[in-house]
């Protein structure tokens, strides 16, 4: 298991007791999402839709790269990796 950082928008910090930087242990992206759901279920509601997928206007970045475009969707995680939850640009 790798210790990784999860960055959360301030707008959602009332789902994480005020924290905008969280730590979690996971070896892959999919297991990071499992831990997110288990430890912060309200945050998971904001990030994932009813089917368990990222909401349409939500991005998950791995070390600054959008996970939607990774060549390996369920990428391995390394110690010190940084996951960032981000609202996609949703203007006109």
């Amino acid at each position, binding site marked *: 298991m790798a210790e990784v950082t999860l960055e959360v928008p301030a707008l*959602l910090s009332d789902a994480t007791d005020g924290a905008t930087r969280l730590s979690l242990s996971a070896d892959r992206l999919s297991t990071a*999402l499992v831990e997110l*759901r288990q430890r912060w279920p309200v945050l998971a*509601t*904001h990030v994932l*839709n*009813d089917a*368990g997928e990222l909401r349409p206007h939500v991005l998950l970045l791995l070390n600054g790269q959008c996970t939607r475009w990774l060549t390996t969707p369920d990428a391995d995680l390394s110690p010190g990796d940084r996951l960032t939850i981000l*609202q996609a640009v949703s203007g006109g």
Partner: protein
Amino acid sequence: MSTTGLLGVGTRKGLFLFDRKPGGDWAMRDPILPEWEVNALLLNSNDPDHLMIGTSHWSWGPTIRESRDGGKTWSQTTLRDKDADGKAGGGPLKSIWQLVRSPDGQTLYAGVEEAALYKSDDGGQSWDEVEGLTKHESRPHWQPGGGGLCLHTILLDPTDPNRLWVGISAVGVFGTVDGGETWAPMNEGLPKMDSTGSPDENAMFCIHKMQLDPNQPGKLYMQFHAYKMPGDDQRTSGVFVSEDGAQNWRAIDNGLADRFGFPLGVSKKGELFIIPLHGDEDRTFTNGEAAVWRSENGGNSWQKTVVLDGEPVYAGVLRDAMAVDQSEPAGVYFGTNMGDLFASHDAGRSFARLNARLPRVHVVRAEVY
């Protein structure tokens, strides 16, 4: 905060609270949660600092929020937990439309889109879907109204905790007498609406709002989606009453300028308040005249109060954007989809515009303390 009355306004962009000070002036607090849509609001008649709201966001989805300090801090709950795969049961959860507390304060109900009813017996910490409703045999034929397939009205019989009614657009009324185990459609006397697209004669009624008469258990009032089919000369009736617990409905809209509208309010004395809009095509005040209509005799006759005399207003009022408080004479409040907010302190005989122009008003609630 010192207040003799609290007016809560949920909008497209946040919650706004107004305090009524001794002397009668309203003072607006700073905007609360302006990044979030507030679609449902529940005040506590015993505690002006206790607020519950249904919030949503185009990116982040819906949750229920609660504050015990007048909106300074909030906690969140979800209506349903995700399973090990991250999937939630039930239909898609798009919005929280209604929050209601039982008369004894022990039970909370939430109405949501897509239409479902949730119940909490622990003050909103956890919720269970009332599955008897969504497993009704008519469910496959439920069709959405303009606001979506929403369960927007929850009425609790103050004399019987097992008896409640819900309203779903564009489906109709369902009632239960066994605490939600079984439900029956209760639309007798309402115009059937083939235009809902539903093939089910038990599920083709676009009701907009219902209220209970506070003095007569089992007496309900309804604002209905009065409509006109191609080739019809007249719109259907739009305001109805039932005096037998929603078993039968009859129209009470003689003399109204228009029969279409969304909100309906009832005062402690039983006065009715509606806001007719011009048909289901444009849904704005008739001839641009902002007006509230009042009945003091259960809908046998109606009196109009023009709210902004001489100023054309081509706005509408959404189904939860009117509130009637427990004062005598009643306070009546409403907000428009253009963000104007009006208050009456003489049971709807005159209105004044509050000094604020807000985002689109979704829900208005009022309490006196």
